[in-house]
């Protein structure tokens, strides 16, 4: 037996026919904002649930001149972000960056960058469960009908029950939104803190769910409204403290456990935002205590 040699892969891994199929799904998704467009998701060389949908969307839209940024939990250096960035650097040989402002495509899992995106940029979300109604109704046959009939009462009942039980809506991420007044959409498991950034975003937002074989989109300058009630308006998270590294306020923070005696620090989840601020001289209360070399 000879060890088989596997032929070279096409630019950005997927063959051109597959990219064409995915681009068609993307165009349809853009034409019907918030609608979950079925597509013939391919098996990818990374596991389902690890970004195969986002990777397929990125692979279909990326060109040799693009500059790619990949984040996971807001950070460029988390393991899966590193892995996906390396994948595209290898199969598409594109320029990669950690700077939000320099990227033409930002692939993300669970966060929207703090720095507002601009026209011409594309934000690609990795989506595990695209169906916002899934945990209220497990059957795809049912939920598709509910979307078709704009039958979203179940979701409002769920949110109402939260209020009845807890006094407020107890959904903190995956917080449902309505796009352009029609489709209720799952923003992917971003914290609800990020929901307002989706509204009237200048960037195109594409969502890829590989295992569930769905693509959806929010075109630039679209209305994206988090579901709520008149007497219980939507409220994003707020933090009491600024980032301990860069002093930023009104950003999403990660809680880091410093010791086993209850020591905690809060730092920017968006590493690029934090680094950029520190480079400009901003300092948080613990910035001096962290050895820079270790990073």
């Amino acid at each position, binding site marked *: *037996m000879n060890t088989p040699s596997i032929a070279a*892969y096409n630019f950005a891994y997927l063959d051109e026919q597959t990219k064409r199929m995915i681009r068609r799904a993307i165009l349809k998704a853009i034409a019907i904002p918030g609608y979950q467009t079925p597509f*013939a998701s391919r*098996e990818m060389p990374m596991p*389902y649930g690890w970004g195969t949908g986002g990777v397929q969307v990125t692979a279909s839209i990326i060109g040799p001149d693009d500059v790619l940024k990949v984040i996971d939990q807001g950070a460029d250096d988390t393991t899966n972000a*590193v892995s996906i960035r390396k994948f595209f650097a290898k199969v598409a040989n594109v320029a990669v960056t950690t700077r939000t402002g320099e990227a033409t495509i930002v692939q993300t899992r669970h966060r929207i960058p703090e720095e507002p995106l601009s026209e011409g940029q594309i934000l690609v979300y990795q989506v595990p469960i695209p169906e916002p109604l899934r945990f209220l109704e497990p059957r795809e046959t049912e939920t598709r009908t509910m979307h078709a009939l704009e039958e979203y009462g179940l979701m409002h009942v769920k949110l109402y029950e939260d209020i009845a039980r807890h006094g407020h809506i107890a959904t903190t991420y995956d917080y449902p939104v309505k796009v352009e007044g029609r489709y209720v959409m799952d923003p992917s498991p971003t914290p609800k803190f990020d929901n307002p950034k989706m509204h009237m975003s200048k960037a195109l937002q594409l969502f890829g769910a590989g295992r569930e074989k769905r693509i959806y989109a929010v075109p630039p300058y679209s209305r994206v409204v988090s579901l709520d009630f008149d007497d219980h308006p939507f409220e994003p*998270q707020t933090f009491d403290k600024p980032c301990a590294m860069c002093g930023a306020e009104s950003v999403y923070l990660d809680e880091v*456990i410093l010791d086993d005696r209850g020591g905690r620090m809060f730092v920017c989840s968006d590493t690029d935002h934090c680094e950029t601020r520190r480079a400009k001289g901003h300092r948080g209360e613990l910035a001096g205590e962290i050895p820079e070399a270790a990073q």
Partner: protein
Amino acid sequence: MYVAVKGGEKAIDAAHRLLADRRRGDRDVPALSLEQIAGQLGLAVDRVMAEGSLFDPELAALAVKQSRGDLIEAIFLLRAYRTTLSRFGYARPVDTAAMLIERRISATFKDLPGGQLLGSTFDYTHRLLDPALATDEAVDAPDHRAGDGAATPRVTDLLGDEGLIEPDAKGGAEPGDLTRISPEFPMDRDLRLQALARGDEGWLLALGYSTQRGYGRTHPFVGEIRIGEVEIEIDMPGLDFPVVAGRIRLTECQMVNQFKGSAKEPPQFTRGYGLVFGQSERKAMAMALVDRALRARDFGEDVVAPAQDEEFVIAHCDNVQATGFVEHLKLPHYVDFQAELQLVRAMRAEWASAPEDERREAAE
């Protein structure tokens, strides 16, 4: 501490180097060859080919080696390679009646045309660990007898002559390709069978078993199981006869199930079908049980059990999808967890500040 929670390229590279080291193991022990894996762990290779949906023993053996014997990981490797292969075309349906039979048994007839042929099987072995296998002891050559050339018709064809069993579905339509579409429910049987053929053996085994224990009973009999090689024929443009592209080894199970009949249909036996690459009776039988259970609606049976629920069975039968999504939970989820931490802290603060009677009310 802050740095430790972050990953980084160096850590990933080092982890992969360690993986390669552990895969190789003790350097004083010779490395496994692909011939050894394909030749001596043939049923592992068969499972990887079946659920990887790619018939290539050599690549499957490589996948088994690369995955350190983790068969779902090996299936994943083979799938990720298969997906990059271009489609030349679709073969004609294989003719299992013309199979070069290695094993063929029927549980419904004591003897039948073509006979019962045990072939190589674990059935009737006593499961006693064999110390002789711990060393490289010589193994006797098997007996071979020349085939008599007689046909081995399928049991379902024999029963079909009397109209006792439902006929084959009408053929001729272009079959769907599960890997090239976004499947929708309800699904046609061709796609459903594809999904089951790629589906996880353990999942199908448990579901098939559940039908035997009363969760969607189908009263099954093994009409027959046959294992052997069939020819793959392809129609080529410009040729008015099919061309044989190669041979593959298959296990086919025809399950014969009871059906009482209805106002529309006279009483007759119904069928469940299992077909997998290589040699795997367990998978083929389980697949046939589940296929029949999933046809409940066709026969006007009540859909009450998990094995009869198409969306539930098919949406969760793919082990590459399942393992990916289950294992993705080890990816970082700090931002979502942070959101939940905040919520739980806020709710605890509310709880602590509320008077006792209000708490009791809230709990009710």
